[in-house]
């Protein structure tokens, strides 16, 4: 099932997210960071901008979760595109 077809002229650029272990390590870490299990239960203060500190931490982790996922879609995934672009002459929008 290896889709890294050697006959493709762009084979060196073929990428699949599942093959990037660090990507999944990063995703697991930001997901865990966003769940405040490691903070003292029931604590609210200090408030940061009026918001409980733990929510600010979770918000930051969530933004990182979105950013890494978005990045992985655009940069860690390139299986069929070279072939499709070649076939379509790069006309896909």
């Amino acid at each position, binding site marked *: 099932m290896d889709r890294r077809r050697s006959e493709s002229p762009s084979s060196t650029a073929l990428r699949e997210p599942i093959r990037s272990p660090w990507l999944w390590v990063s995703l697991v870490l930001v997901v865990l960071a966003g*769940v405040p299990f490691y903070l003292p239960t029931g604590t609210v203060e200090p408030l940061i901008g009026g918001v409980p500190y733990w929510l600010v931490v979770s918000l930051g982790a969530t933004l990182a979760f979105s950013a890494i996922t978005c990045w992985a879609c655009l940069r860690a995934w390139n299986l069929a595109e070279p072939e499709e672009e070649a076939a379509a002459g790069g006309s896909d929008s």
Partner: protein
Amino acid sequence: MNGLTFAGTGGVLVLIAYAVIMLVIGYFAGRGKSDEGKTNRGYYLTGGGLGFVALLFTLYATQYSGNAIVGYAPTAYRDGFSWWQSVPFMIAVIAVYLLFAPRLYVIAKKQGFVTPTDWIRYRFGSTKLAVLVAVLMLWGLANYLLEQLVAMGQGIAGLTGDTVPYQIGVIAFVLVMLAYSWTGGMRAVALTDVMQGIALLLGIGAMLFGALYLVEGDLAGVTQHIAQTEPEKAGVPTTEDSINWFSMILLIGFGAAVYPHAIQRIYAARSERTLKRSLAIMAWMPLATTGVVFVVGIIGIQLFPGLSTADSEQLVGMIANEVAGVNVVFYVLMILLFGGVVAAIVSTADSALLAFSSIVSRDVYGRSFGRTASEGKQVRVGKVAGVVAVGVLLLIAWNPPGTLLSIFVLKFELIVQLAPVFVLGLYWRRMTANAAFWGMLTGALTAGFLSVADLGPFYGVPGGLAGLLLNVAICVLGSLASRPRDRAGTTDPSVPADFRATSADPA
């Protein structure tokens, strides 16, 4: 949302306008594409030709139903800040797509898949497993569709202040939905999703604007008020709640990503570039959708303190009433909000209906009585089955069960059991059809039983996730324990060589 007083004629006019726009889009989507409607792949997947804008909005409008507004705001109201989890669990859906969509897209394009079951047959060559998958998908989709029909009636009755009664509202919009789905298939569904997705975004924006107006833009004041009056809603959640938070990320992430209509959008993408660009944007949409709804629910804690669980279900309607009473501009904004809610519901329902029909066409009729029938006839049978299913569900919808969220979780608990055959099945050659079948069946029965018996969550772990863990364990251990000659599915000559097991296979 019943009993709203702000709406009426304005709401009816907005609904009529939405209905007309949907019908016009559906008409033009189907016009000149008569050949497309004669094949399963053409009708159900636009022949795999969805471009960037249509794909993005159909992913968006399908993933976020009306429940994301009218169900999630009350949950934020009841749970407090811990409902922030609704943002990461929707991002998780896109992260889970990354686990299987890239490779599945490539295989689906090459093999001409139409339904998720096509992948099961291709990979495992097992009729038994394919039937189980089809049954679970049909059950999940029917339940999902039922939820949308219930929400549709409530939304329309709410928007029009009961000027349009619940039943009439549902029937009218169901007819509109059936009309454009029938004529234009996936192309009509996706193009109406563009309009519906924009309406949803406008509606959510209007709701946030209105709620902020009511508290004079003082969000910090709202959170300080909550910290003082209801500190349990502002404090760090208990360990059990944190486990439930993490469990929901897994459950929703895996469950929503393997919904049949979600998988079919992978198949329908015009190109990989289109698909990954759409998903890249989708990774941010939870912040603009469930994140905003979360803020509105939190504001509701200050605006309407002390509501019971049942009363809190009306929170969005209550806020809308308050906002609409300010002046005519806010009145119009709130009509936009409810128009957005209805559009969101219809856009989710039409996708579920189309997926339901496709499974009937391809996996039920096309594999039994209609084995020799033309694809055009298979499509027609699927369309008729969809109409019949909606008719049956409408009868059930007249007596809506429970709160919206409880129905939502019940569906996920079963659909999520499909995740191993997509995620593990794509990469682990040694995975066998038998292990997958027994894992899925055990997981579904366990999750179903726990839901029906109202057992769990177990220290924060919902029954659906418990079923999934059991499912994965059986898949893995069963596959490892099987001898090569016992791997009936993977030695079947109909299974592609890529997935055929040999005694030399590495685990």
